[in-house]
C-alpha cells in the first residue's frame, strides 16, 4: 500500500525526484525556479539522494548541463518555469534532437511581460514544437504519478525523447493536497537502472554527439524524431497501464469524464479540468448532458482518439490558457479543429481563451461556457469562434 502524504505540487515533484534519484540534476537555483528545486536541494543536503546536483548560472546552462550529463549516459533531470524555460529555448531543441531522455517538470507560469509570475500555459505551449513530449497534470497526485511515468516513457527504446511534466503554477505548485505516494523500493523497481544506448564516457566505443548535420542528413534525423513521436502514444498508454498495476491509478492519453451521452463537452487540460469536473458533476445531477474531455498528453497530440471521443457531441468548447497571437484560436483549439477536419462530424466549436497571467477561473466561468454551448449546439459554430472567459469587457 502507498503512503498518504500532504504535499504541494512542487513537493510532489521533488518527492518523485527523490525516489527516482537520478544520476545528475542540474538547476538554476534562483527565480523563476520554484520551490521544487529548493525541496530537491534539501534532499541532496540531507543525504537522501546520491544524485550529483549541479547548480548553474542560468537556465540555459541548466539545460546544457543536463544535456551533457544525458549524453554521457546519465539519467539526468532538471526543472524550470516560465521565463526560465524561455531562456533554455535553444538547448530544449537540442535535447530532443539529440534524443536524450531527459525528464523535466515545468511549473506553468505566464511569460512576461508585463511582468507576471502566475499561472498560464504560455511557457510550455510556446515550445510545443520543440520535440519534447508534454504531459499536463490536473492535481498534485498527477504531478507525482506523471513524473514517475515520464522516466519510463522517455527512456523507452521506441521513444528516446525528453518529456516535460507540466503543472499549473501556484494553483498546483504551491497548494497542499492529500495524495498517495509509493514506497521507495517500489519506485526503485519501477524506474530500474538506466542504460543509455550511447555514452560519451565509454572510450572503448567512442561516439560523437551533436555533430554538424547539413543538407545531406538533417532532414533524415527530423524524420526519425517524427517516428519517435508516432511511437510515443502506445508507450504512454502502456506505461500508464503498468503504473496502474503498482499504484491502482491507471493513465491514458486522455481522460473522458462523463462523456457517455454528453452533447455539450468542454475540453481542458491542467488544473482547470478539476474545476470543470465539479461543474459537470453538478450539472449531471441536474440532468444535463454535459461532459469533459481532459487532455493529459498534449505532445504527441492524440488526434484520432480526440476526434473519436468528441464524435458524438453537438457542441464543444475548447479552453486555452495561452494565446497564439495572430492565429485562429489558441493552440489546443487549433489542433482540436484540425483533428475534427474530415471526420464528417457536425460539431459546433468554440474557443475560450482564459486564465492568462493567473486570472482565476471559477465554476461560474465553466457554467457560462456550458450555457453558451446550449446555443451553439442548436445554431452551430458561432462567427466569434474565439472568446474570452473571465475578461473584463
Amino acid at each position: 500500500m502507498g503512503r498518504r502524504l500532504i504535499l504541494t505540487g512542487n513537493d510532489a515533484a521533488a518527492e518523485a525526484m527523490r525516489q527516482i534519484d537520478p544520476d545528475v540534476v542540474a538547476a538554476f537555483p534562483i527565480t523563476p525556479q520554484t520551490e521544487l528545486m529548493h525541496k530537491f536541494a534539501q534532499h541532496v543536503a540531507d543525504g537522501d539522494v546520491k544524485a550529483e546536483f549541479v547548480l548553474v548560472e542560468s537556465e540555459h546552462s541548466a539545460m546544457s548541463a543536463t544535456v551533457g550529463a544525458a549524453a554521457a549516459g546519465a539519467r539526468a533531470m532538471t526543472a524550470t518555469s516560465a521565463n526560465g524555460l524561455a531562456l533554455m529555448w535553444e538547448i530544449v531543441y537540442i535535447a530532443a534532437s539529440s534524443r536524450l531522455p531527459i525528464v523535466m517538470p515545468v511549473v506553468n507560469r505566464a511569460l512576461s511581460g508585463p511582468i507576471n509570475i502566475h499561472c498560464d500555459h504560455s511557457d510550455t505551449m510556446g515550445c510545443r514544437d520543440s520535440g519534447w513530449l508534454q504531459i499536463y497534470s490536473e492535481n498534485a497526485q498527477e504531478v507525482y504519478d506523471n513524473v514517475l511515468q515520464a522516466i519510463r516513457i522517455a527512456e523507452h527504446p521506441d521513444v528516446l525523447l525528453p518529456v516535460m511534466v507540466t503543472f499549473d503554477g501556484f494553483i498546483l505548485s504551491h497548494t497542499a493536497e492529500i495524495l498517495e505516494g509509493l514506497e521507495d523500493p517500489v519506485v526503485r523497481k519501477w524506474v530500474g537502472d538506466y542504460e543509455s544506448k550511447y555514452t560519451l564516457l565509454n572510450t572503448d566505443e567512442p561516439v560523437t554527439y551533436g555533430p554538424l548535420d547539413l543538407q545531406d542528413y538533417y532532414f533524415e534525423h527530423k524524420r526519425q524524431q517524427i517516428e519517435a513521436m508516432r511511437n510515443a502514444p502506445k508507450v504512454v498508454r502502456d506505461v500508464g497501464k503498468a503504473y496502474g498495476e503498482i499504484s491502482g491509478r491507471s493513465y491514458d492519453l486522455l481522460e473522458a469524464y462523463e462523456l457517455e451521452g454528453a452533447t455539450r463537452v468542454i475540453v481542458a487540460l491542467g488544473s482547470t479540468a478539476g474545476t470543470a469536473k465539479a461543474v459537470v458533476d453538478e450539472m449531471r445531477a441536474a440532468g444535463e448532458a454535459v461532459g469533459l474531455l481532459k487532455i493529459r498528453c498534449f505532445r504527441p497530440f492524440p488526434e484520432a482518439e480526440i476526434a473519436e471521443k468528441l464524435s458524438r457531441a453537438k457542441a464543444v468548447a475548447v479552453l486555452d490558457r495561452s494565446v497564439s497571437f495572430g492565429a485562429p484560436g489558441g493552440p489546443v483549439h487549433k489542433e482540436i479543429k484540425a483533428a475534427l477536419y474530415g471526420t464528417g462530424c457536425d460539431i459546433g466549436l468554440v474557443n475560450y481563451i482564459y486564465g492568462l497571467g493567473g486570472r482565476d477561473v471559477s465554476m461560474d466561468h465553466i457554467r457560462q461556457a456550458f450555457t453558451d454551448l446550449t446555443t451553439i449546439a442548436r445554431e452551430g459554430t458561432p462567427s466569434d469562434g474565439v472568446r474570452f472567459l473571465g475578461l473584463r469587457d
Partner: protein
Amino acid sequence: MKERAWTEIPIGGVIEDAGNAHSYETGSWRTYRPIWNEETCIHCLRCWVACPDSSILLEDGKLTGIDYEHCKGCGICAFECPVDPKAIEMKLETDVSER
C-alpha cells in the same frame, strides 16, 4: 559515399564510428591551396606541427605532400615555413587549374 535513408542511420545525429571525419571530404571549402615545393623543403615539420587539421602528409618523418581532401586552406603551414623562398606557397584555387 552512398546517402542512406532515415531508417538506416543512428538516431540523434550520433556518430558511431570514431574518426570517420576522414571519409568526409572537407577540402572543397578551400579558397587558397598550399603548394608544396619538394626542392626547397628542409623537412623541419613546422607545418606538420602547426596544421590545425592533419593535412600535412608524412612518411618516415619526411613530408610527402598535402591532403587536399581535407586541407581547408588556412595558410598556417605557409606562414610557419622558415625557408626562403618558402617551401609552401598559397595560391588561389581559381588560379590552379588541376586538382
